[in-house]
Every structure is written in C-alpha cells, then in structure tokens.
C-alpha cells in the first residue's frame, strides 16, 4: 500500500510549518513508521537545521529533479538517531522556479511506494512554491496562529486547497493545527480563542500547540521538541501524531473549562 502524502502549509510565513513537519516526522519515526520529509522551501531551506541534519546533505530536491544524482535514495539524508527517518532537503542556492509541480509529483510518487509517510514542508505564500508543495499531496495540514492576518491567510489557503481538491479526487479535507496559543491571553480576550478560529475556518481541528519557549531551545539545538519529555508543546505534538494514526485523543486542557468546548467542536462539525 502506498504511503500517505501530507503537505504542511499556512499562507503566512513564520507560523510554525517547519516546526510542525519536524515534530510530526520525528513523532511518526518514534512509532516505527518509515518517514521522509521534503523541504520545498527552495532558497530558504531550514528543515535540515531544525532537524539537526544539515551536515549530512550532499544532494537536494533540485538535483534530484534535474537528474544530478544516480537515484532518489542517494539524495535522501538519513537521521542519525532514527534510522527510519529521512530528509530530502531544499536547495539553498536556487529559487522556487527551479522545480515544477510535475517534477514534484514524480518524486513523491516514487517516494510514497517506499515510505509510510511523505511529509512536505511548504514555503510561505501562494505562488509557485505553494503549487509545487501541494501538487503531489493528498492530505493537507493548515497551520495558523491566533492572529487575524494568519487566520485570514489560512482561510485563503484552505480555499485554494479545496479548489485543487475539486480537480484531484485523491485530495482529502484539510485539517487545522493551531500553534502558539496562549491561554492566559485568550482568557483576557487579548487573543483570538480556539472557537473563534475554528468557527471561521470551519475545518477539523488536528491539534493545538501552546506557546512554549522549549520550542525555541529545541530549534536551536536541532532536536525537535517532541523528544523533550517535559514540554507541553512536545506533548501536544505527540497527540497530533496519535490522531494522525487514527486514535481519538482528547485535546489537552490548557485551561479548565475550555476542554469540553474543544471536544464538542471536534465532534460537532
């Protein structure tokens, strides 16, 4: 059976796509899944750094598309700790036009035969880089943060995904990850709440990641936060991985009283 191909996208930059890919990838590898992560942010690659896998890079996705390396396998970087976790890095010196959606589709079609999961880290924006990242995916995780412009962009991205879904019957309903939530601010009504966002975007919620400085520490160490047993964000990512695998996992209570509402939202729509 072919593996699942999931793109992580957002429209707005800097909301946590790369962080999400790194953590979900690592979490799935922890569950013995065979995973490859593709960085399609050509020219601004950083999934390799976040994963601490920069030093293993020889070839990149553009080399692969242009036939510079002998095999697809040769272009992949293997994680030192998890032998079932791989990375296909972005090129740092080229731009997004260096690769076409068709080339991406070819690469992914080959990878999904061998891997359980192909995770695609999408660049910000809605241009060529987005087209490349989305072309080959059949599932989409839309990441947003509780700020109006980010939610607006997520809405636009969901619309674009749904348009693509009309033409490509393999594509499924998109799901939402809400990142950098600060329950203290929501409580004081200084930040959009989960139900505001959920109501606006009207798609299924896959997970909520709290604001957590451990993520910044982890990012700088090159070791995803999901490996940190004491991090709330790490725990939230573990829940997301379990939900992806089909388990029903209640949403973490960041704040008493909200949990029931999260739950209802998930099951109400």
């Amino acid at each position, binding site marked *: 059976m072919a593996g699942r191909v999931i793109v992580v996208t957002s429209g707005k930059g800097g909301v946590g796509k790369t962080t999400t890919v790194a953590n979900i990838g690592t979490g799935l590898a922890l569950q013995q899944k065979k995973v490859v992560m593709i960085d399609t942010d050509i020219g601004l690659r950083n999934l390799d750094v976040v994963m601490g896998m920069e030093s293993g890079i020889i070839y990149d996705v553009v080399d692969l598309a242009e036939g510079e390396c002998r095999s697809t396998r040769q272009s992949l970087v293997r994680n030192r700790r998890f032998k079932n976790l791989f990375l296909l890095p972005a090129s740092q010196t080229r731009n997004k036009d260096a690769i076409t959606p068709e080339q991406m589709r070819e690469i992914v079609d080959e990878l999904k035969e061998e891997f359980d999961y192909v995770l695609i880290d999408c660049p910000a924006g809605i241009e060529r880089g987005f087209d490349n990242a989305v072309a080959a995916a059949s599932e989409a995780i839309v990441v947003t943060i509780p700020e109006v412009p980010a939610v*607006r962009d997520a809405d636009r991205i*969901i*619309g*674009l995904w749904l348009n693509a879904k009309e033409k490509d019957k393999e594509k499924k309903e998109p799901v939402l990850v809400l990142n950098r939530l600060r329950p203290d601010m929501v409580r004081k009504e200084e930040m959009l709440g989960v139900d505001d966002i959920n109501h606006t*975007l009207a798609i299924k919620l896959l997970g909520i990641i709290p604001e957590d400085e451990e993520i910044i520490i982890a990012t700088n160490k090159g070791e995803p936060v999901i490996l940190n047993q004491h991090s709330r964000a790490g725990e939230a990512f573990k829940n997301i991985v379990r939900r992806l695998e089909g388990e029903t996992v209640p949403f973490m209570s960041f704040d008493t009283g909200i949990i029931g509402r999260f739950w209802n939202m998930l099951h109400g729509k």
Partner: protein
Amino acid sequence: MLLSATKSLLSDQLVFKGLKQGLTLFIPEEKSFAHWLEILDLQLKQAKNFFQGGAILVEIGERKLSPSEHGDLKRLLAKYRMTIKSFNPLEKKRFNPWPREIQKKEKQAEVLFFKGTVRSGQRLENDGHIVIKGDVNPGGEVVASGDIIILGALRGIAHAGARGNLQAEIIALTISPVQLRIAHIFSRTPEGREERQGPEIAHIKGEKIVVQRL
C-alpha cells in the same frame, strides 16, 4: 421650437423594468427609433448615477432594427457604460429556441444554493439569487443580480442587485462586512460597529443602504 421639443420629450418616457431575466429597457413599437434614442439619451443623462454600468436587456417587440439603428443604440448605451445583454426577453415565452434540458438548467440557475464557507479569495457569482448555508469570511465575495441570503455570518463583500435592481436585499444572520453593495450603491460598515446577533437585512432606503434587524 425648443420649447415644444422639450414638451414632447417630457410626455414620452421610456420604461426600465427589473424582470427576472434582468433590468430591461422597453422601447415602444410606435414612432421612429431615432425618436426613442433621443429620449433615452435625455433620460439617461438626467439619471446619470442611477443606471450606470452593466448589461441590460432591451424589449423592442415586433420592431426590426437595421444594423445602423442597432449600432446607434449600442453606442448610446456605451456612453452610460451599459451594454446589451440580449433583445426581447418577453418573446422567449412565446417562442423558445432552447432544447428542454437547457431550459431546465436555466431555471435552476435562478437560485444558486451554496453549502459551505466562502473563503478569502473566493468569489461566488450568480445571475439570480444566492443562498448560502455557511459564512462569508473576510476577503470572500458574493455577487448576485438578485437577492443574497446567508444562513451564517457575512464578513466579506456582498453585492446584490448587481444588474441594477435597487429592490435587491441582503440578509444574513450577522452582517459585519467590509463592504455592502446593492445595485450601484455602496456602504461600508461604520468603524467599531459591534456585531449584532439575530438576522439582519440590508436594503436601500432613499439613496442609502440601511442595515436593520429582520
């Protein structure tokens, strides 16, 4: 001379009517076509802002237009940024050139029912009414030649009566759009207006769009 001309122009008036096919100009079969063009020019000049823009229908009954008469009408309407969508909408009832399936589809197209969210960057359009079961998000756009009914929140752009129908209405469970438009009249939500609960209706009163509890 001038006086008598004005007098006769006043007694003759051309009628615009909002049919279900769209805004329709009625040109009587009697008198010369040139005569009616003169009147039309005058009427449009007076109502400059009223009938601006858009494609209209023209009902000419049994009258046959020469190519030059057709051209004159087209040019005159173009002056007021109008175009001719088609002639004789009434005649269709008497003689329908379309096969049955197409007739059926046209009928269904009069009301567009849309289930889901109209998202940022999306535009929903219908020559007829639009009913939406869902929200219209900021950055989303809905355009109808008839009414717009939203069983949800309107937070984007809505344009009803897009072919010039001033009677068109916009109804939504809450209305907090960036921009409302009915026919050629615009309105923006005043800054700081609180989102009210309960259905609201937007329609034209006088020269302005008003939003009220339904």
